[in-house]
């Protein structure tokens, strides 16, 4: 395994194949938790953390499943791993970092149903990534999510003062805005790391 490959994976996960803007994973929290930039950052960090951990754990779980010839149970096993991981993190934060816990509030359990988390785990298996590649893909995918949700929340804060047709209130204008940001992200699509 080379450093170049890891770089290529990170670059893809953050910019060219951003989870939100080109793979459509994790749209629900992206639209739901992006009204203020500070909660957006909190959510982004939490998702990054869970994605990294889930990638690591599910890599192990997948090895066991394949050994037992149970790979068709992947979806069920992975979602259970993610759910228990989120539950565990919730308990841990409640005990040791209560301020962060209250700041994240209801969004923490919602990470379970964030398709970006389950998506990254499934993509790891699909792409045959090894352990380090999986973890790197998980973390950088989360960072890409963080970047997207932060950019989007700053635009959305300004939208409150914007003047648009009444029918577009709420989700439609948010989706259009996201579409325009996605258009900007398409500018990265030619980027790649050349093998040295």
């Amino acid at each position: 395994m080379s450093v170049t490959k890891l770089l290529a994976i990170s670059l893809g996960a953050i910019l060219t194949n951003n989870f939100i803007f080109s793979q459509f994973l994790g749209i629900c929290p992206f639209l739901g938790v992006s009204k203020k930039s500070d909660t957006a950052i909190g959510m982004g960090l939490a998702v990054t953390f869970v994605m990294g951990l889930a990638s690591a754990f599910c890599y192990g779980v997948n090895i066991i499943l394949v050994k037992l010839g149970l790979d068709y149970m992947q979806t069920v096993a992975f979602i259970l791993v993610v759910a228990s991981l989120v539950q565990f993190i919730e308990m841990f934060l409640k005990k040791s970092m209560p301020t962060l816990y209250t700041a994240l509030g209801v969004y923490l359990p919602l990470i379970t149903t964030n398709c970006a988390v389950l998506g990254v785990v499934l993509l790891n298996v699909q792409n045959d990534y090894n352990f380090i590649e999986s973890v790197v893909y998980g973390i950088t995918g989360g960072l890409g999510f963080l970047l997207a949700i932060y950019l989007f929340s700053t635009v959305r804060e300004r939208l409150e003062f914007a003047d648009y047709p009444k029918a577009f209130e709420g989700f439609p204008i948010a989706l259009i805005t996201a579409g325009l940001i996605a258009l900007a992200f398409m500018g990265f699509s030619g980027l790649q790391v050349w093998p040295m």
Partner: protein
Amino acid sequence: MNFNKQLKDGLIYQNPVLVQVLGMCSTMAITTSVSNGLGMGLSVLVILTLSNIFISLLRKIIPNEVRIACYIVVIAGFVTIVDLCLQAFVPAIANSLGVFIPLIVVNCIILGRAEAFASKNSVAASAVDGICQGIGYTVVLLILSAFRELLGAGTLLGVQIMPSSYVPAGMLTLPVGGFLCLGTLIAIMQWALARSEKKNAEKKETEGK
């Protein structure tokens, strides 16, 4: 039980995508062609109905504290069944839907209906609710995917529809097009709902006089 009302709710007033704004990821990601939209819509319809029936059956057994985990396991089981069936019978569609089939597990529509409806209502009502909401979801997927495939590639279900001189607006099949089309569709829906509400209010007013 009022089938008509539930169907109307699923299609219009409580449409899972356009009004409840659930299940965005799959809606935008796979509506690039009609065959994908149809495959996804029907899969969700089947899974939603089955999981609604099952969760409604189990609603008195599942303890309240761990209900979400139980729901997810039930849903994941059905998703795996549908995933395997698709791979066996329509491998082309299974391939192009890719990772989004297993991701139906975390589709908020299914968990949302389980939590909001199936856990509180009888088996028959839950089954009807699953079918109606599934139809609402499928219809939206079909509208979106027909629009995007027709203008973005000039085809419908892979058959060339537009004249050969038509230059496809490729942007529509890209992620950008997904965001823009869905945003506009929800806006149209909000406009129509607001209008009909206003009409109803006016009608009541004149009747009141």
